[in-house]
């Protein structure tokens, strides 16, 4: 019963909103906001398997490549910078500046260097979403409990073991926060880099629909992007919960004790 009630709470409002949109727009004569029924029909017609393979798959691959690369670079550099006080003091203003540059303005710059191929898009994604990962890793590494560090040193835990068993686990909740921020930036950059110069990809297709006034198709593209963003953040949450389950358990235990 309780489960049913929970499910009810989860789906009630979306259902109401969706139904509201469906019925209120059903008689819509407006060119720009067609009835939802038309949009849904367009969704089925537009995003066929062929289309998904030709446009969505390359987008997702570029997203994945850029995101993973940014994660590797961000965590690697972040650990190095976080562990070295002087390096950190030297680089901090530079990093703050790079983080403050709105990532989409890098698209024209990177187009100069890398042309308009897949490489450009991956570089744009890496360059835009590496900063939250990097800065959060630096913060996380810096915030490692000094007692834990001293204990580890006293027990002779040094080198790789110190890094993988002490520092990285202690920084991981913060690193995860950086990775989550980076994910939404990565999706945004994936779409924007494709809006600029491209011959395939989701961003390209949606702009194409808009320019050719294929309005229901454009709406269906927006819905698809929304679903994609939702699905990716859900996947991330699952992965995070799995990777940080020790941390959640610790927090819960502390809360009960406190």
């Amino acid at each position, binding site marked *: 019963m309780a489960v049913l009630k929970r499910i009810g*709470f989860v789906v009630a409002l979306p259902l109401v909103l969706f139904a509201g949109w469906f019925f209120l727009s059903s008689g819509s004569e407006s060119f720009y906001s067609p009835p939802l029924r038309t949009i849904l029909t367009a969704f089925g017609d537009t995003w066929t398997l062929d289309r998904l393979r030709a446009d969505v798959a390359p987008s997702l691959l570029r997203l994945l490549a850029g995101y993973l690369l940014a994660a590797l670079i961000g965590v690697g550099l972040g650990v190095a910078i976080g562990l070295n006080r002087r390096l950190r*003091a030297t*680089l901090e203003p530079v990093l703050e*500046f790079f983080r*403050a*540059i709105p990532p*989409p303005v890098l698209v024209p710059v990177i187009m100069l260097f890398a042309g308009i191929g897949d490489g450009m898009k991956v570089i744009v994604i890496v360059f835009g979403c590496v900063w939250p990962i990097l800065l959060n890793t630096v913060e996380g590494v810096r915030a490692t409990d000094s007692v834990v560090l001293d204990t580890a040193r006293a027990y002779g835990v040094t080198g790789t073991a110190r890094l993988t068993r002490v520092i990285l686990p202690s920084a991981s909740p913060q690193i995860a926060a950086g990775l989550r921020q980076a994910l939404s930036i990565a999706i945004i950059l994936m779409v924007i880099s494709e809006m600029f110069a491209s011959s395939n990809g989701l*961003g390209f297709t949606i702009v194409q629909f808009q320019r050719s006034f294929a309005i229901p198709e*454009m709406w269906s593209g927006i819905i698809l992007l929304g679903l994609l963003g939702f699905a*990716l953040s859900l996947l991330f949450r699952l992965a995070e919960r799995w990777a940080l389950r020790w941390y959640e358990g610790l927090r819960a235990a502390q809360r009960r004790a406190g």
Partner: protein
Amino acid sequence: MTSARRGNPVLLGFAGLAGLLLILELVPRLGLVNERFLPPTSRIAAALADEVGTAVFWQSLGDTLYAWAVGLLIAVVAGVVAGLVIGSVPVLRELTASTVEFLRPIPSVALIPLAVLLYGTELGSTLLLVCYASFWQVLVQVLYGVADVDPVAEETARSYRFSAWGRVRYVLWPTALPYVFTGFRLAASVALVLAITAELVIGAPGLGKEIATAQASDAVATMYALIVVTGALGVVINLLTRTGERRLLAWHQSVRGEVSL
């Protein structure tokens, strides 16, 4: 350890910036990167000086800041009001949770085609994107803040028969305020990014549009100069919101704790 041995962080920071500028000057001069793609620092600085002298630059800077401020204001007010209402009514909170989770990750750029259709290249397109993106930052933070209210304080206020308004004013608001500020700070940077993105992609007037124009007309140094301006703008907004937060929340535990460290 004395600070002299560690190195003064401010000095080291300046050294880092100077080092970056030097590298960016030398790399193109030594021919490691084609000068057409990455002009030396001095040429970018000259282009920046030229830009600062033009009226167009100040006009676009003003346009960007205007869109940023108006969009941010709307988003913050809407986010705080919605957050307080949803957060303090448990049923509403449970009902909206899934919808908030669904709408939040929708990339704001997905709305670009829609904004173009509705408003063309006017200010409205930029505002739509800025508001949408920064609203969620504020809303989610306010929801966390309201959930953080101490049950004992809430019960105490009830036993002393505080009115509903009194409970909001003296219990809810002070608890949620630090979260509101965090939301504001996040929203301020997101709003700037979205304002410039909208101008860049849609062509609404502002710095982003100038960058697109410079790129299209092959004025590479000018393009870099404008990008530096957007970065500097971001840094300034960050600094201002951080300082403002510390000032206005000087009474709060989190800030007092930070200062005494």
